[in-house]
């Protein structure tokens, strides 16, 4: 274990712990705020893995936009201040499937990657990511812009009063 491994493990523990808080808290607003902690911890993991551009985009779009949208939805659906009692279904089947997929995937990754050591990659700066996007992945990038436009129009149509 080198220093970067210790930091990856510590930040990973923060991410998993706050994710558990997201799915178990009885306060709607607190679930959104714990999600900020999880997304921030994942952004730090990106930084530790030298993917700095992805990390900053994660902060800008997820923490900046997606969480704010979710908190707006919480407010617009008139969620009560304080704990709600009707947020959860019985825990059994969800626990079975969630723990099965999580532990199964974790076991698979440990089995495949346990002995692997790699040297840290060169920094994923905006310049290198941009060269990859506009070199090899131009077509998916352009298709994504059409998808965003479609999502925008769809959201507006769904929000119209008389639709």
């Amino acid at each position, binding site marked *: 274990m080198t220093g970067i491994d210790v930091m990856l493990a510590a930040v990973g523990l923060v991410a998993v712990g706050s994710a558990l808080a997201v*799915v178990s808290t009885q306060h709607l607003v607190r679930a959104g705020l714990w999600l900020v902690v999880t997304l921030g911890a994942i952004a730090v*993991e*990106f930084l530790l*893995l030298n993917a700095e551009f992805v990390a900053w985009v994660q902060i800008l779009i997820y923490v900046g936009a997606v969480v704010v949208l979710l908190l707006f*939805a919480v407010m617009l659906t008139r969620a009560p201040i304080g704990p709600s009692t009707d947020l959860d279904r019985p825990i059994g089947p969800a626990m079975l499937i969630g723990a099965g997929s999580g532990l199964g995937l974790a076991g698979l990754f440990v089995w495949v*990657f346990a002995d692997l050591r*790699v040297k840290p990659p060169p920094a994923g700066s905006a310049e290198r990511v941009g060269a990859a996007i506009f070199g090899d992945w131009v077509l998916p*990038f352009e298709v994504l812009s059409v998808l965003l436009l479609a999502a925008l129009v769809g959201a507006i149509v769904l929000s119209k009063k008389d639709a």
Partner: protein
Amino acid sequence: MLQPVIPMVTAAFLFGIGVFGALRRRNAVLVLLSVELMLNAVNLILVTSDVVRQQMTGQVFALFIIVVAAAEVGVGLALVLRLFRLRANINVDEVELG
């Protein structure tokens, strides 16, 4: 030197927690939150496999997934708000079908 197994296992646990939340929660907004957890786990795996393979493709795909997630959450919340306006209730197991 770093061990890619650590972020991989973190991502596996995050995905499992997301699946658990999406199945257990009744409130539609909380289900969307759990879906975001699963998408982020996949992003972490993509970026880590970039480290393993020493290339950039995974980071490009992680960016694409972030954009798709933003579009998904925009449309999803519009649907949730419409459901709330129609039924004054966004519990996913009380939506009447048909």
